[in-house]
């Protein structure tokens, strides 16, 4: 009898103990990206937990590719922690800080931008500065793409490294909608004539919020105030036209605005099912990629609004208590390499814009980009038009709160 009980204990305990005792090891001095060989040496053998939104197959595939490359070349194991929401990673780091776990954290690298970055930077949850010292930083287009150093107007200060450019586009199915509306008032008129055929992801989903900001740009009396904090710029007056517009638009939305898609990619399925005729995207190549995957019919095309659309950069950041900081830097640096950037821009892969400056690249590397067939539904850089800078994060916060009060709770 004693034997049985102790056997039970023997069978169970090792599993418990290994699970409980492992973390809280890696600390050591901060890796310095200026001494890159030392970073590479330290990174070898590390496992990097890359926390990145996992809702789209295309990005998941790209991350898996990058993980394989970094593993082969630098001996760094990359695990993609698929998030339903980037803020989950923020919560995790916060919970660790709460518990006083200042080393050996669970998050090594996080795909981030905008409000999440602002919140983490402000709360001292980030490691850095490091991004400006990455070897591949010299290729970054800091002049032509100011968004790579100002994330939603918040200076990145080297606490995050850019890896993709995004710009708002819309896509439509030419089989059902030949000439799409190219201004917000035109969109409203079209929606009145075609009720139930347009929607946008439900804020605070970032793409839904982006739609609101895009509308605000067009409708606000003076869009330049969006670069300053909302409280200083007379928030109520600036946003009044937006709410008037939404009050008119909402009854003509898909499901009369009583339900919304919960994410951007969910619009792809709605489009493929023929429920909606046009949709917003933050990735100029998304439609081409989706056509290549059989998710959308090949009659889908991309368009932009008159007067420009919002553009921003996607970044990666390292939490202050990350376990594998050197490995995370190696991965971030790889993401900035011309090879990875060209791979990401391939519409068959991801269709994301590059953050690099073509004139800073060697001819071979430039050729990688020139060789890309951007796909039938992807606009050329000229067609894409000017990229408007993201408003100050305070706008998004207040617009989201007000949107939820006005439309996010059934009236």
């Amino acid at each position, binding site marked *: *009898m004693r034997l*049985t009980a102790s056997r039970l204990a023997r069978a169970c305990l090792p599993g418990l103990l290994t*699970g409980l005792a492992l973390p809280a090891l890696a600390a050591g001095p901060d890796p310095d990206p200026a001494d890159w060989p030392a970073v590479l040496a330290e990174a070898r053998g590390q496992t990097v937990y890359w926390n990145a939104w996992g809702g789209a197959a295309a990005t998941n*595939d790209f991350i898996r590719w990058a993980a394989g490359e970094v593993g082969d070349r630098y001996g760094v194991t990359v695990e993609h922690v698929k998030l339903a929401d980037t803020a989950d990673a923020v919560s995790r780091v916060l919970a660790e800080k709460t518990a*006083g776990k200042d080393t050996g954290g669970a998050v090594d690298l996080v795909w981030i931008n905008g409000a999440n970055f602002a919140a983490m930077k402000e709360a001292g949850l980030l490691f850095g500065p490091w991004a400006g010292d990455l070897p591949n930083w010299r290729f970054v287009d800091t002049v032509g793409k100011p968004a790579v150093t100002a994330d939603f107007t918040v200076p990145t200060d080297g606490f995050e490294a850019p890896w993709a450019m995004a710009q708002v586009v819309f896509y439509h199915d030419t089989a059902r909608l030949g000439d799409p509306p190219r201004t917000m008032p035109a969109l409203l008129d079209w929606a009145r004539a075609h009720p139930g055929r347009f929607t946008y992801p439900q804020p605070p989903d970032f793409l839904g919020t982006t739609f609101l900001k895009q509308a605000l740009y067009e409708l606000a009396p003076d869009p330049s105030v969006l670069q300053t904090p909302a409280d200083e710029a007379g928030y109520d007056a600036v946003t009044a036209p937006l709410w008037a517009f939404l009050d008119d638009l909402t009854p003509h939305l898909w499901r009369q605005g009583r339900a*919304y898609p*919960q994410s951007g990619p969910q619009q792809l*399925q709605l489009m493929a099912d023929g429920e909606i005729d046009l949709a917003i995207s933050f990735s100029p190549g998304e439609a081409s990629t989706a056509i290549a995957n059989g998710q959308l019919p090949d009659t889908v095309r991309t368009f932009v609004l008159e007067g420009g659309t919002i553009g921003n950069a996607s970044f990666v950041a390292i939490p202050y208590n990350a376990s594998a900081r050197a490995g995370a830097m190696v991965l971030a640096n790889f993401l900035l390499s011309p090879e990875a950037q060209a791979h990401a821009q391939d519409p068959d892969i991801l269709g994301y814009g590059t953050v690099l400056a073509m004139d800073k690249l060697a001819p071979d590397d430039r050729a990688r980009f020139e060789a890309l067939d951007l796909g039938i539904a992807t606009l050329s850089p000229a067609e894409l038009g000017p990229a408007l800078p993201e408003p100050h994060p305070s706008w998004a916060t207040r617009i989201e709160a007000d949107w939820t009060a006005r439309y996010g709770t059934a009236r």
Partner: protein
Amino acid sequence: MRPLRAAPALTLVLMLGPVLAGLAGTLAPALGVFPALGGHTLSLEPARALAAWPGLWQAVALSVGTGLAATLIALGAVTLFAAGWAGTRAMGLLERLLSPLLAVPHVAAALGLAFLIAPSGWIARALSPWATGWQRPPDLLILQDPMGLAMIAGLAAKEIPFLLLMTLAALPQAAPARRLTIARALGYGRTTGWLKAVFPAVYAQIRLPVYAVLAYSMSAVDVAIVLGPSTPPPLAVQVVRWMSDPDLSLRFRAAAGAILQLGLVLAALALWRLGEVGAARLGRRWAEGGARHMAEPVLRAAGLGLAALAAAAVIFGLAGLALWSVAGFWGFPDALPDGIGLRSWARHGQALIAPARETLLLAGLATALALALTLACLEAEHRFGLAPGSRSLWLLYLPLLVPQVAFLPGLQTLALSLGAGTGRGTVVLAHLVFVLPYVFLALSAPWRAWDPRHATVAAALGAGPGRIFRTVRLPMLLAPVLTAAAVGFAVSVGQYLPTLLPGGGRIRTLTTEAVALAAGGDRRIIGVTVLVQTALVAAPFALALAAPRLIYRHRRGMRGAG
């Protein structure tokens, strides 16, 4: 002998400790205490912020309404079905059909149902355009409707198999055949007689499972994300949203909301209890009133219809997702895809290997631990003659009655501050909280029903307790032990929040993948993931059924033993 004697206490600590500790860890920020965010003093500010949120009353009404409605529908369907069909072949058939559905993870069932009933879903496709005239999906608010009807349907469809199996397990104690014979001899119809003479005894047995269904339905997050409304969502979903908002100050409001969720569940349970008393009074008056026939054919048809509908919803939903996983382009209103191919499997299958392995490992560890503890408890009960009171059953159900959002976030913070960190060990412990009750419930009845004279005979033959346990009791109870293990395995595989939060996000299982993918809405990859997930749950059940039959194929006395 001493470790075994301590087994019941250890089991209770492992099962209830995390719940209580987690509740404390949630209560603190709900009262304004969260040092890392600058909350150092007690304050009612979080409660005030919660009250000021414009969607609060709708979110609360949704939680309570959907929970009560789903529970009432599930209980009603099961009762009518059992009343009209107990002991018939139709019952046997549906029982065999429904029991495997118990194992289908909630998320999988919800995603399958979503594709069935959406305006662009399979039912609409099958009827279009020839019957409906729809060339494009109609703009109908079926999924995510503000009343939560789709969510109620999904929850009820998934709880009907659970309550039905609980009812069938409880039936023998109610001596249904004798009671029903007497009632029918007195001139009562089959359904009426069953409701009047058998149901009260059955309900007393399934009361706790019904409470668990009510608590779960009110607090489900994964099902609500897929099927529930979003303007606003039910309270539990909104709490999880606040937890993951970039505005960190919302954590206080989230904690207050989690405590409110706990209060709502307790209040709803109290309300249900009141309803029980009222229903009992009315029922007695009805029973004493002497009415013998009450629309018998209608009630019987309703019972069969609802049970069959629940089975069909889950089965066709999974079939639809299976088809998506091999579909080429599949536009509306085609009832079947243009082409069939393994492209999605080739593309996504590989990425599922690691989460599938993790799922297996977690479920294996949690199940092994739960099984060991359960066996130790039951064996201690047997050897030391410990008589389990009715109170111990309540303790077992406690983790199933406390909403997950109310204690898991607190548990996460607590695990970190104890230096346990987040990782597989913490996740296994969190899973154990939910796996243990189910394993215990599944195993205790057959274990206690075992004829103890076998042990006396073996002891008289010179076998000590250890040898009796190993060579007599365990082999004789192999089938129920394996079934309990399969139940525990399925419970572990289906856990979403208990994987997400204590795992620090590093632990990726098929369920966390499925919920993350649900946000993307890509039906092909959802189909692949859900199928793998369901297969992973179904395999242990098949094994639990097949292994004893194979091992004891030459032992007639072992057939039908549990």
